[in-house]
């Protein structure tokens, strides 16, 4: 193996003059050709800044390389120090030697140009002419396993799904056949099944071309799947680096150990919770019983807005949750899992169906169902202090804020693990995890019996995520709360769920006991979903490439789907029968 990149004692700071704030501090590593290095860390660890320093994009976001060398070996064997290279030559290096893939494919492409034009531009920069560039573009898309590539050349970014766009981004990054590819969280914004496809693609392309790959991620499961070597970063410093197997199996540094412990491991249903509220409360009515819940969004066409059918976002969904139980709703984006949650809270109008709730006996139990949202930064009004935020549901219920309520506030804040002086502080003074705790406290103010958690831990760092999950489980055990836990993360689901419902194209395709569903999935979609989950055990395993997309949810007006027929497996596990010819 030949050394491709050698970074020595790299430090990067933001700001000017004396007020310079170090973000990356003394990072040293090397990368061989054809090797994959994973840089792992939580938000703020400096992993992205390290990557952006290598192709010097950091110059454009206010950062400055203060010390260190970044030596890139060129094709002719010469070494070039990228840390001190002038802007003009750096631009040429970026175009030809280093490719980059960003996290958000939706915003990385120009929305007013066709994808064909955008990829062609890279070839034109290499001096290739019209027809030649177009032929190369087609070849590049074919290489990305994009079906029907010739037609897709004329598509605009908004006409393609996130997974397809990320493939286009990879095609652009690889168009110049760079010797080094930097991927900054390339799959974080994508669904699990799409993520598996992208990972498979990256691994396969790397085998074909021998490109060196720097892969930045917070997901240790992904690291196990792709990396040869791992570098763990914490607050701008490298705390540990080495061979992937060594780091994952025998971590030396306490932070790495901590990180590995915090990561929810998916174990095919072997580690589900063993308390069984369903048996304990078997003779009580379900706290939430949903019958035939259907949400359709009518669409219109033409100038006169004639009705043209409807998007069947949620179609005849049935389930029950009993006291103290967690039902996890899983599925990819567009499967209707969030819409189901929002329909229960009255945020979207239900077309048909009903649900009943049972409130607890408590005095303040006014609304038995409360919700915690995904993004703790957006779900708290930045201009209200904590006291006013917690008072919101109370005021909405028409209850006076008195000493009793205030003492409940302090007790709840204490219970969710926030400092006692929080009442007079504002949301921006808290971290993401603390804010989510605040949201949980707010949802608990009226002593609900059901908590709807819509991707409530998805936006949090792994170690924070683990602690919030622990808190949720403790709260559930203490007061027999029922959770409707919407998530796309199977590992998190395995940790908190008693039962699992798999949603696909607006319908439940499989529902039942968590152990049964996760360890013995019956529906082909559930199997596909579980097969796509990256785990620590799947080292450099080949993920299967599958480009099948979810069927359209747009139905003609008056369309009524056939009622589902179910097949039962065991006491609590039923699966929707798959039609021979899916509609």
């Amino acid at each position, binding site marked *: 193996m030949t050394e491709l990149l050698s970074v020595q004692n790299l430090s990067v700071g933001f700001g000017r003059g004396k007020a310079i704030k170090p973000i990356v501090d003394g990072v040293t590593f090397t990368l061989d050709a054809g090797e994959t290095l994973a840089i792992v860390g939580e938000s703020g660890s400096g992993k992205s800044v390290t990557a952006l320093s290598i192709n010097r994009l950091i110059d454009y976001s206010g950062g400055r390389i203060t010390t260190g060398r970044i030596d890139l070996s060129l094709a002719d064997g010469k070494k070039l120090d990228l840390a001190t290279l002038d802007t003009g030559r750096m631009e040429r290096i970026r175009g030809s030697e280093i490719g980059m893939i960003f996290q958000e494919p939706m915003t990385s492409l120009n929305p007013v140009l066709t994808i064909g034009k955008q990829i062609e531009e890279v070839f034109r920069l290499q001096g290739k002419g019209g027809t030649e560039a177009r032929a190369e573009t087609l070849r590049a898309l074919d290489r990305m396993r994009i079906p029907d590539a010739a037609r897709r050349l004329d598509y605009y970014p908004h006409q393609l799904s996130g997974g397809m766009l990320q493939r286009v981004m990879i095609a652009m990054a690889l168009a110049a056949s760079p010797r080094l590819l930097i991927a900054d969280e390339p799959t974080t914004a994508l669904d699990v099944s799409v993520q598996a496809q992208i990972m498979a693609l990256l691994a396969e392309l790397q085998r074909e071309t021998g490109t060196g790959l720097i892969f930045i991620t917070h997901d240790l499961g992904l690291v196990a799947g792709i990396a040869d070597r791992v570098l763990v970063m914490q607050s701008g410093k490298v705390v540990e680096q080495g061979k992937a197997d060594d780091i994952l199996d025998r971590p030396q540094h306490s932070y790495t150990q901590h990180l590995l412990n915090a990561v929810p491991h998916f174990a095919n249903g072997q580690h589900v919770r063993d308390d069984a509220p369903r048996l304990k409360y078997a003779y009580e009515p379900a706290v939430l019983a949903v019958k035939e819940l259907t949400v359709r969004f009518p669409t219109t066409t033409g100038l006169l807005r004639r009705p043209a059918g409807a998007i069947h976002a949620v179609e005849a969904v049935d389930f029950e949750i009993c006291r103290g139980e967690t039902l996890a709703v899983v599925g990819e984006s567009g499967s209707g899992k969030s819409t189901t949650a929002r329909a229960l809270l009255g945020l979207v109008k239900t077309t048909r169906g009903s649900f009943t709730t049972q409130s607890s006996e408590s005095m303040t139990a006014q609304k038995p169902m409360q919700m915690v949202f995904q993004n703790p930064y957006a779900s708290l009004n930045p201009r209200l202090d904590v006291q006013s935020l917690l008072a919101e*549901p109370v005021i909405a219920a028409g209850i006076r804020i008195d000493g009793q309520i205030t003492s409940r506030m302090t007790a709840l804040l204490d219970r969710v693990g926030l400092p006692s002086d929080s009442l007079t502080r504002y949301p921006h003074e808290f971290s993401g995890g603390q804010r989510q705790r605040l949201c949980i406290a707010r949802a608990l103010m009226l002593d609900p019996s059901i908590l709807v958690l819509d991707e409530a831990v998805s936006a949090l760092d792994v170690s924070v995520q683990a602690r919030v999950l622990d808190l949720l489980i403790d709260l559930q055990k203490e007061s027999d709360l029922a959770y409707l836990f919407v998530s796309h993360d199977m590992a998190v689901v395995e940790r908190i769920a008693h039962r699992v419902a798999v949603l696909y194209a607006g319908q439940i395709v499989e529902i039942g006991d968590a152990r049964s569903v996760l360890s013995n999935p019956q529906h082909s979609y559930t199997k596909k979903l579980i097969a796509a989950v990256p785990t620590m055990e799947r080292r450099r395993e080949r993920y299967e490439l599958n480009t099948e997309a979810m069927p359209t949810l747009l139905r003609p007006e008056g369309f009524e789907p056939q009622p589902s027929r179910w097949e039962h497996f065991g006491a609590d596990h039923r699966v929707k029968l798959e039609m021979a010819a899916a509609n």
Partner: protein
Amino acid sequence: MTPLLSRLLRHPSGCVGAAIVLTYLLLALAAWLGLTPYDPLQQFRIDRLQGPSAAHWMGTDMFGRDVLSRLMIGIGQSFLVAFSSVGIAAVIGTVLGLTAAWVGRLWDGVVMRLMDILLAFPAILLALLFITVVGPGTFTSILAIAFVYTPIFTRVVRGPALSIKARDFVDAARTFGSSTSYILTRHLMLNLVAPLTVQVTLALAWSLLTESGLSFLGLGTQPPNSSLGLMLADSINLMEMAPWLLIFPGLAVMLGILGFNLLGDALRDLLDPRMRRVAS
């Protein structure tokens, strides 16, 4: 709001702007309380067109009236028009913008197209049109200027209101069962305070200018009452003979607008959430 005030005074342009605006307000207040050096209407026939002196700091005009006293009254008059018109425009504009964003659909379309039509006319032309119909006077110019600035407030409120409406915390409030009026006041209005405050200070500067313009054209405040624009109009024929008649009201208009603009800039900086104290 005390911390905001102290931060405002530490902000360089905020400090200057606040000082100018405060001085004007004190001058206007003194004038209303009758604390002018002379009666602004009293005519010292012998002292006509006197330059600035110890007795008359800013000289006298062609009727022998004290320019400083008239300037103070004029500032009071101009401020009265500016504040009332901006106040009316802010209230109506906020209500229209907020309801347009909240209700949406037809109401949004009707309100915003109406505002587009109003915005298509130059401000002074629209005010002229209004005054031609109703007739000149202080009260009319207040209404005319309010009329002209309402669409600007409607737009300034509607944009952010639309984006705040789509934020999760509004959805969260809905899940608690909060009433619409609670969501509108607590969540939307509270987050609109910053853009509104900035817009109000800037609109005050513009309306000061518009009022002067209208009075200058003889359509605003009517003589013998005094306003900055009226004083400028009176001075133009005597510009060479008695330049102080032009200079002092002109300076007063300029400084006033500068003061409001500096204050607006400072408030924009200070109310930006990114400038606020972060987690300690």
